[in-house]
């Protein structure tokens, strides 16, 4: 099959068209997708059984007294955080991708840093600072008298603000990539048709970046749904806290799974919404010549102040607070602490490599074998991100433990006890079940931007299958792969419940060290591993952004 040579030229944006392999190859790829989806299917199936689980006393109670409230709360929270992170992430991305202002290069990567600060840390810092008993309000009272007060931080607005600050980088990172590749050009089209930069942003760049923004916002929505640490610090009740309550306070895992099964419904709704928004993802080639717009004088400094303000609030302040807390315990740096750091780095790096490789195969398989079955598998494989960590942990742990028990009984006695549930492989697969969405979103976005005619061209040269993936796609996907790897790396670093449950003996990480102390509210002692966690999380962020800066100034 040959196509007109025209499509090989850098030319008009090609249609979104998937490349079909032959039928037999197609089935093989579908199978590959099924294998990749397996780690996520396991816990999801465990949760889904909760749907038909016993609708007992606990569930009836939750239905009457808890669910109506948490449903409303969850909806408000997700909406608020998605809107907040969307606005903040998109506008900052636009600012650094299109305009030149003092400090732009620095802000371009530094604005990603808040990603490395776990949400529960940010929550604790801001509640500590801004609550009635905190230093800010105390100073205000000393100054202006007893009546002086700020709006309460422990409120719906407060939890939305803090989660927005921790989650906006997901949108920022993805939007920045979109704007760097096509935003300046979109702006020029707008301006050649008489639109000011502001209107060009709203009417051209934003609609064109919509598919990528939708991906970022989906990540934010799922992360918000799954969050426990931050909402718990605010005592803000959501679906997730209700799941915790059913499981840990009312001793009913069945009821917890039942609720988790209900949680999957809004997730599916959000996913469907994202698919609609994504609708017409299309590639517009980069025009490297489109330059930055210089913001002169005061306007430039205002832009720098805005970016600096966000950076201060979302990163510098909480990090400084962590540093202050960690100073007295610097002496506590011992061998075990270094071991935990090493384990964290190792797990995060292997998790990032594994998950990005899975995401790549998933995305490529879907490219070769488009269709409803593939779409569904891709969706299922990434659903784990919306499940609260402990639910996913138990969903992985319990089936594997049962399997191990069977195996132990079945194998010769001198083989000893099999415990698949606490091995590195299981830990990594559980990470995969949880974070595949994080790796998949940027990888898939990059994959979709590769014009299908390239696949045809490669095929015409006899390069197909995995060789084509390696020789044609990989080099073009570098940015997407690195972005995915960074996000996964940072997320694995911060992950607690799965690590706690499925880590092999001795595999303590910085996050489990943090847990040891935060579980009993000893924040000062948790600060040192917290600082190490943030610093280690910064590594890939710095690498990624330095590379991105070299490519697109």
């Amino acid at each position, binding site marked *: 099959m040959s196509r007109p040579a025209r499509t090989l030229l850098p030319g008009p944006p090609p249609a979104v068209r998937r490349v079909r392999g032959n039928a037999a190859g197609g089935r*093989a790829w579908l199978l*590959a997708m099924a*294998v990749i989806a397996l780690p996520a299917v396991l816990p999801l199936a465990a949760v889904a059984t909760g749907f038909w689980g016993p609708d007992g006393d*606990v569930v009836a*109670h939750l239905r009457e*007294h808890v669910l109506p409230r948490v449903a409303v709360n969850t909806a408000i929270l997700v909406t608020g955080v998605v809107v907040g992170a969307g606005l903040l992430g998109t506008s900052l991305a636009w600012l650094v991708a299109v305009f030149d202002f003092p400090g732009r290069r620095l802000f371009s990567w530094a604005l990603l840093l808040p990603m490395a600060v776990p949400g529960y840390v940010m929550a604790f810092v801001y*509640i500590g600072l801004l*609550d*009635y*008993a905190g230093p800010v309000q*105390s100073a205000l009272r000393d100054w202006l008298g*007893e009546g002086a007060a700020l709006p*309460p931080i*422990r*409120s719906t607005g407060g939890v939305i603000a803090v989660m927005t600050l921790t989650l906006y980088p997901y949108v920022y990172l993805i939007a920045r990539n979109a704007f760097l590749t096509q935003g300046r050009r979109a702006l020029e089209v707008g301006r050649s048709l008489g639109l000011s930069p502001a209107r060009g942003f709203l009417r051209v760049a934003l609609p064109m970046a919509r598919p990528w923004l939708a991906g970022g916002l989906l990540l934010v929505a799922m992360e918000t749904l799954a969050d426990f640490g931050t909402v*718990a610090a*605010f*005592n803000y009740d959501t679906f997730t*806290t209700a799941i915790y*309550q059913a499981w*840990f*306070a*009312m*001793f*009913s895992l069945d009821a917890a799974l039942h609720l988790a099964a209900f949680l999957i419904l809004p997730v599916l709704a959000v996913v469907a919404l994202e698919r609609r928004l994504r609708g017409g993802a299309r590639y517009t080639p980069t025009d490297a010549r489109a330059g930055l717009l210089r913001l002169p004088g005061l306007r430039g400094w205002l832009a720098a102040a805005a970016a600096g303000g966000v950076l201060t609030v979302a990163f510098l302040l909480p990090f400084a607070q962590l540093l202050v807390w960690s100073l007295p315990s610097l002496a506590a740096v011992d061998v075990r602490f270094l071991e935990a750091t090493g384990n964290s780095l190792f797990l995060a790096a292997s998790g990032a490599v594994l998950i990005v490789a899975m995401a790549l*195969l998933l995305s490529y*398989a879907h490219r070769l074998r488009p269709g409803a079955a593939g779409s569904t598998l891709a969706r299922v494989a990434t659903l784990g991100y919306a499940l609260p960590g*402990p639910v996913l*942990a*138990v969903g992985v*742990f*319990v089936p594997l*433990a049962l399997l*191990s*028990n069977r195996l*132990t009984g079945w194998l010769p006695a001198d083989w*000893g*006890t099999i*415990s698949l*549930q606490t*091995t*590195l*492989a*299981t830990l990594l697969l559980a990470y995969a079940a949880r974070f595949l969405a994080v790796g998949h979103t940027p990888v898939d976005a990059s994959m979709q931007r590769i014009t299908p005619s390239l696949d045809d061209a490669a095929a015409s040269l006899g390069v197909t*299958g*995995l*060789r084509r993936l390696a020789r044609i796609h990989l080099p073009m996907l570098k940015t997407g792969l690195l972005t995915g790897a960074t996000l996964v790396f940072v997320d694995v670093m911060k992950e607690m*419940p799965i690590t*706690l*449950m499925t880590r*092999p*003996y001795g595999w303590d990480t910085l996050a*489990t060290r943090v847990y*040891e*102390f935060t*579980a*009993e*509210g*000893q924040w000062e*002692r948790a600060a040192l591993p917290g600082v190490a966690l943030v610093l280690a999380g910064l590594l890939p962020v710095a690498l990624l952004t330095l590379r991105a800066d070299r490519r697109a100034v």
Partner: protein
Amino acid sequence: MRMTAPRIALACLVAGSAWLAGCADTGSDDEITVYSSRQEHLLQPLLDRYSEETGTPVRLVTDSAGALLQRLQAEGENTPADMLITVDAGNLWQAADLGLLRAIESPTLADNIPAHLRDPEGRWYGLSVRARTIVYATDRVDPSELSTYAALAGDEWRNRLCLRTSKKVYNQSLVAMMIVQRGEERTEEIVRGWVDNLAAPPFANDVAVMEAIRAGQCDVGIVNSYYFGRLQKEEPDIPLALHWANQDAEGRARGVHVNISGGGVVRHTGNAEGATALLAWLSAGEAQHLFAALNLEFPANPAVAPADQVAAWGEFTPNPINVAKAGELQTEAVKLMDRAGYR
């Protein structure tokens, strides 16, 4: 050979299984594996000392209580765990109720630990005691105004009370015990009264409650004794004090609500003897003193002296009802607090 996706997947599976099998853990025979939800830094030094004294290696695996119970359940007969240590009687009761712990006959433990601080069937034993009692601002509250938990529901405390979230098991145990003492109806009334008196939405932890009291947002609260101890240790002349609640209350309501951290021997242990020995070792002498003192708690063994700072808070009468009741009624307590709007 051309690698296709299925072939690669197969290769991964094979490699993965090899890895999995290689990782299945086996410990030495006399080793003791402890599953614990008590903070590692409170426990590890003791276990190290035990290993030193007896030559028995001890492995510590930490996680939250709920996760550990789930883990024991799933692992069943093949669990590597020999002993479970967790905080809160509710969790211990739950572990026993799920059949995860075995009853042990140990005269030492029976002697050392008072009856109301251990399972009547001997499946778990309290190792340290924490009182959950009233804390107040010494500059704004006269201790004579304070009496019982129930009294904090009175109108005189309107907008003066701070509480931690009802999602913390400590409050669930407290309310469960109140249900035992005063019945469900009366308890719900009391909890509603508390909610009406709150000066601020419930806090995420006890430390925040005490800081709010100090800052003047409220005047009284209910906290675990060791949280107060930690704060007092950092700042000896803090203007807060503990009040032992319910000292003059009538009948079953008499006594401060106490809770325990404690442990038991896992039902499917391969080393019941070793685990029992470790548990007994923890219940007496220097080990028992340290177990409590490291966290500013009271030793469960009345023969062992608490830390000086703890002793300085004075004597109190604890509620004598067996703490296991807290576990039994925990679900009811949670439901009650939900109904009463205590978040």
